[in-house]
């Protein structure tokens, strides 16, 4: 019972925000966010944790230009010492009549990567050497949605699939990964005049 009340309280702001009728999604909308992202390396079955942020500009209500940055914090299995990533590209926003904003996108990117030559397994103690740092091209697709709760804030859930390979002076490491991040973002429209929604 307590859990249900907590869930209802948690979603209360959504009900309130949904009363606002004006549509926020329009040409000139700028949105940005910073949050924590987590990813699963598909070929290694390892988990990466990132600090992530993005900046997006709607050149039309359906199309936006978008840049993302991922600052690598941790890899559970220590296969990767560094895995910072930058993406740039575009998103296509599926048309709706409200402030719910589902999208798909394509973003080429680059990673700054460094690996350990012999990943540690469990508590096994192995002498580790770091590879040279290298730049790795990435191919990436995104899918997710924003919910523009007001003129200034939105909620978002963002999923991403990444394809790439870290190549250095040691063994190659696959960077193929599925990633998810969510949280609160900020938005404003640079083209709309004051007093007009």
């Amino acid at each position, binding site marked *: 019972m307590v859990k249900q009340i907590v869930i209802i309280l948690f979603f209360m702001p959504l009900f309130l925000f949904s009363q606002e009728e004006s549509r926020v999604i329009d040409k000139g909308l700028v949105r940005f966010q910073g949050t924590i992202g987590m990813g699963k390396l598909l070929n290694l079955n390892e988990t990466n944790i990132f600090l992530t942020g993005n900046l997006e500009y709607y050149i039309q209500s*359906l199309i936006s230009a978008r840049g993302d940055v991922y600052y690598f914090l941790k890899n559970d299995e220590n296969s990767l010492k560094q895995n910072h990533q930058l993406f740039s590209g*575009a998103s296509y926003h599926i048309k709706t009549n409200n402030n719910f904003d589902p999208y798909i996108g*394509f973003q080429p*990117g680059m990673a700054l990567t460094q690996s350990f030559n012999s990943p540690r397994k469990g508590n096994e103690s192995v002498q580790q050497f770091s590879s040279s740092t290298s730049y790795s091209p990435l191919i990436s697709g995104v899918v997710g949605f924003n919910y523009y709760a007001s003129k200034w804030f939105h909620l978002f859930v963002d999923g991403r699939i990444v394809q790439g*390979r870290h190549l250095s002076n*040691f*063994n190659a490491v696959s960077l193929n990964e599925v990633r998810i991040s969510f949280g609160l973002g900020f938005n404003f429209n640079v083209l709309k005049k004051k007093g007009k929604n």
Partner: protein
Amino acid sequence: MRNFILFIVLLTPVIFYAQEEMRPSNTTKASGMFELGVRSTISGFGSTNNIGTGFGGQFRLRISKRINTEWFADFITEDIDGLAKRNDYHIGWSVMFYPFATEGKFVPYILAGHCFDYTKVSPVRTNENIIVDEAQSRLSSATQLGIGTHFNATDYFDVSFGVQYMVHLGNDIHTDIDEHNRTKELHIEKESHSNPVLEGHLLFTVSVNFKLGKIW
């Protein structure tokens, strides 16, 4: 004589299109458009038979209704059988020719152009028992020919899919892998200046492009 006739037949479409360019109406309507974009490239069917992945960007400047130009830079990396890595840096330009539709959702194109590139092949230290050569690099020039299509999602944005064959003229770098007594030997060899060779690869490119405005 047969070769000459074949040559003329192959050139016929160019003659037809040249006539169209002389028409006064609408030929300058699309010209001057400046586009900016980013792209991903897959490189395959090269000398090592491995697949490379690349990141790059380009801008486009449309010259006329049927002719566009694309100026690009790419960085491509390739894993050579887990024993070496190859990095390619491309910078170049292509002319894009629209033989069919020049506007609409799908606009197919033919492209041809030039490219300059720097290639470096470096050995990898693996846990396997291997003997490797030192890294080698080269500068070369290239020419490319390909086809593709724009998908104009809106008037201001397109996604382009292209495939092009790029042939490099310059010093050849190639890798050979031998195995003797369970020891792999990786040889990275570079041909001398006196013996330039042709080396090609097929590039598949997906790009997203924003039409920023007309320059003229």
